[in-house]
């Protein structure tokens, strides 16, 4: 064929199957620990997990988190502890989705969803406040108009947190060392992780930390 072999190359492509994803209509499955946009979790009784400690803001390398804590009112507490996150803002024009905030959080309040398909028409929309970040009464992420959610995508909201809990210590693999979440209960460890459940007590009961 020589110089004309290009014609054979192009015509054979016509009969090969396409690999193109129909992206806005369908999405390729993402890994369970994918880092997407954040949610602020709540306990199973509806209380907020965030205690306003600002560790996430301190660890954030992009300095995109702004937190202000406030004392809980005794007759109408927002979180189980003494204080709660009064202001919680994440600027998604700066966030690099490194998940250091998730690892730093002592109460598993902030975790990530797998959603990265969001874009803004205004800079103001890029700054998520508690209104957008806090999960709703079913424990699901609140879907914003500029976010592209497809069905079932908000099921995995804390896989990375569970994988790194607690303190990233391998001795705790396959042990539940995390609290329950609103709408999901206490989630199971990921499948395929080794270890002997029950060999070590949980960190808050005298285990390794």
């Amino acid at each position, binding site marked *: 064929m020589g110089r004309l072999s290009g014609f054979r*190359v*192009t*015509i054979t*492509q*016509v009969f*090969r199957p*396409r*690999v*193109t994803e129909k992206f806005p209509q369908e999405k390729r499955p993402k890994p369970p620990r994918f880092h997407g946009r954040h949610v602020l979790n709540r306990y199973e009784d509806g209380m907020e997990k965030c205690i306003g400690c600002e560790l996430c803001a301190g660890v954030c390398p992009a300095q995109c988190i702004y937190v202000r804590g406030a004392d809980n009112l005794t007759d109408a507490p927002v979180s189980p502890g003494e204080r709660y996150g009064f202001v919680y803002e994440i600027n998604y024009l700066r966030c690099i989705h490194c998940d250091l905030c998730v690892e730093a959080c002592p109460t598993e309040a902030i975790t990530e969803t797998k959603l990265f398909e969001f874009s803004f028409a205004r800079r103001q929309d890029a700054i998520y406040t508690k209104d957008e970040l806090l999960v709703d009464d079913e424990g699901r992420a609140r879907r914003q108009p500029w976010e592209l959610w497809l069905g079932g995508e908000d099921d995995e909201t804390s896989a990375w947190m569970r994988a790194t809990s607690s303190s990233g210590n391998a001795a705790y693999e396959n042990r539940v060392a995390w609290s329950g979440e609103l709408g999901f209960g206490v989630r199971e460890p990921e499948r395929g992780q080794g270890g002997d459940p029950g060999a070590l007590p949980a960190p808050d009961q005298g285990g390794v930390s």
Partner: protein
Amino acid sequence: MTRLANPFPGGDPLFNHGLDLTVIGFVIVKTLIVFGLLLVSVLLYIWFMRKVIADMQNRIGPDQAGPFGILQTLADGIKLFFKEHSTPARADRPVYLLAPFVSALAAFLAFAIVPFGGIARLGTHTTFLQLADPPVGVLWLLAMSGIGVYGVMLAGWSSGSKYPLLGSVRASAQVLSYEAAMGLSIVGVLVHTGTLSTRGIVLQQTWQNWHSFVSQWLWLPAIGAFVIFLIAATAETNHPPFDFSEAEEELAGGYHIEYGGIRFAIFYLAEFMNMITMSAIAVTLFLGGPSGPKLGFLNQGGWVNVWIVPVFWFLLKLWVVLYATVWLRASLPRLRYDLLMDLGWKVLIEAAFLWAMVTGVIVVGQDQHWNLWIVTPAAAVAALLVYGFLMMCVPGKRELEDIR
């Protein structure tokens, strides 16, 4: 091939009974139909090209606008129409504004001579289904493709900018070079048909039986001319792999860099109109135009066989040729400019000329009842000898380096 008698020696029979208002009405309607056909064809061709190239690159291509993305070109056109356009400060304003229309006008006018259907009767009038059938026929095509390059040249010159100028100089040099090869390859057809009129050429290729496909359609009797015509037409329309006038790696887009919005769209339109026109001319000259087998179970003179079937054959052949052009676009990388000139001047012009000469000898031989088994090889050998002699006169690679 056997030469057939032309039943219409006087051209389009529409004008046989003088010029009255009905005749003028016919012409106006035909003009509108041809114009609409060409515009719709361009819209469809751009979509078709993108889809086929996507096929050949294992992609899906445009699929959002309308079913199968068929309205994509329309959407692009509307977008371009509403875009802002600016004129460069150093542009020669009247010429700058005129250039796109020169391009488009020539492209449209060239299509006027293409027979896209059979010979139809409407009331007392009989007419060819083509806009015009001038006795100079094919020469009109050469003239129009020559004028079309004025659009490119004026655009490049009047933009007042370097890259467009270089692009337009390249385009005019290229068209000049390949116009000769194309004209000579057409001579290879004209020797067979004995007429310049496109309708006459098509009538010579009338379908009689399945044997007409190889004996009467000129693609096989004039196979050399056919190949040369396809290459030269590709170069003439600035189609890849010969799209030097807009070589984006070198010239950042060529002659239309300084154009935006609807004026850019008109250049685009003209380019694809030229492509379609050239394909239609290839169909006319070599593939029998609208001729083809008719539906045997229907009345031979019925409206289906007179109106629909020839148009169907023409469009089918046209889209087959257009598919080939897209295949070419998808497969071959752009040549180097000196290789383009080498191909044009050192190969195609000589080959087309010698093919026309040999064909002429054979046709005359048939006419005079010479022994073709002797005449054909003798003519071919003579042609090869002439070609060898010409190549000896052309400086070789080493001599060219010495000159430099």
